[in-house]
């Protein structure tokens, strides 16, 4: 099937097999390896990307369903220069151990921060309820999201 979509601000027009999932397209065809496949059931959130600005698990979406959409992964965040405050917050709050869940966590955090500039702890918890981490116990990740929100607010203040 022929599909057209934007991935990380770049246009693609390509033929995909109907059985290909979005996670397979992003990782194996386009090489965006920040997108991890964990459970393959939409439970662990490691494959989370933004689709038209919304956090989705790319293992529960067929590639052809992404026709006409805009996809954003951690690589795209980095290219846009939007990764830094979240990345620093995750590093300084020790929110990364094995790192497998981190890209998915960051994309879920990004979806929240795009919607709410000053999230509460409850907001942060709810935003990552679909992302499993087996190392950190979540507390540092929740702190990082709140910290990232402050950093982004500061950056916005400095640049205005």
């Amino acid at each position, binding site marked *: 099937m022929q599909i057209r979509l934007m991935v990380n601000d770049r246009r693609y027009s390509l033929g995909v097999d*109907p059985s290909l999932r979005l996670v397979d397209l992003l990782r194996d065809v386009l090489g965006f390896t920040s997108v991890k496949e964990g459970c393959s059931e939409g439970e662990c959130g490691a494959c989370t990307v933004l689709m038209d600005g919304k956090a989705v698990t790319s293992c529960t*979406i067929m590639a052809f*369903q992404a026709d006409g959409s805009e996809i954003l992964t951690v690589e795209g965040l980095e290219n846009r220069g939007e990764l830094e405050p979240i990345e620093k917050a995750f590093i300084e709050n020790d929110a990364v151990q094995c790192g497998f869940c981190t890209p998915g966590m960051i994309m879920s955090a990004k979806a929240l921060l795009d919607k709410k500039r000053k999230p509460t702890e409850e907001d942060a918890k709810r935003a990552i309820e679909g992302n499993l981490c087996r190392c950190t116990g979540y507390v540092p990740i929740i702190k990082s999201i709140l910290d990232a929100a402050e950093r982004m607010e500061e950056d916005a203040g400095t640049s205005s």
Partner: protein
Amino acid sequence: MRARRPRDLSELRKILGSGKPDLKLLAGGTDLVVHLNANPGEDWDLVDLTGIKELKRIAVEGPFLEIGALATFQDLEDSQLVRSKTACLAEAAAMVGSCQIRNRGTLGGNVANGSAAADIPPVLCALDALLVIESRDGNQRTVRAEEANPDDFKSLAARGEFIRKFLVPLEERDLSFFDKVGSRRAVTVSKLNLAFSCKLQGSRIEKPRLFLGALAPWPVRAVEAESLLTSVTSKDLAETSFLDALSKTVEKTIPDRASMPYKRQAVKGLGNHLWANLLEVIR
């Protein structure tokens, strides 16, 4: 595997009119894509509905709140209309899965997938909603949620049909309620759920509609508990007899199921939450 992605209803009708007996409809994919990936040997002929904007409409139409079959759980949670007119539907939607699942999973998919543990069917039953099923020639038939048969959904596309929308009567409801019990607080599949709506006349409960989900293939109406609520004025209402009536419905519905001893207790927890909500408004 074959797949098509119609852009509008007329394209969808054309595909459904092709007379292919193996056509299956794909919506948010949160269950079906997982199944497809786990069973690569299966041959599917898919029709993806997610590209059809007309199926996502949420609007008031005459005496109904009309909700398109492709409205996502997040759409329901975010919709001011859904929140103000049918609070328990917004609450149930907000309790489904995770953010990622709510952003993709749809109302129509939750119903048509036919899972006994689905959260939306009991809510639709409690709200006395209608399912509008459209055929390839544009004709529509309506089915009361309470009377729907989940087996009917399995062959929709093969019969040239699809769920177009849901109609929720806007008649004044004084209370609507949804709660569920699963193995954890969030991102959980219901082991049991309960949806309720009623009108209030002073301290009397009128027209109660109480449905239990994840008990049978389709939600079960808890008639005994309902009649208890209507038979007495609020000051005579006793919580224990109400909870016992709920337990009896569970025992009667699944007498031989291994989960019966658990569910007849679990239903009391849900009943207790509903009871607290009822007391808040009638006393």
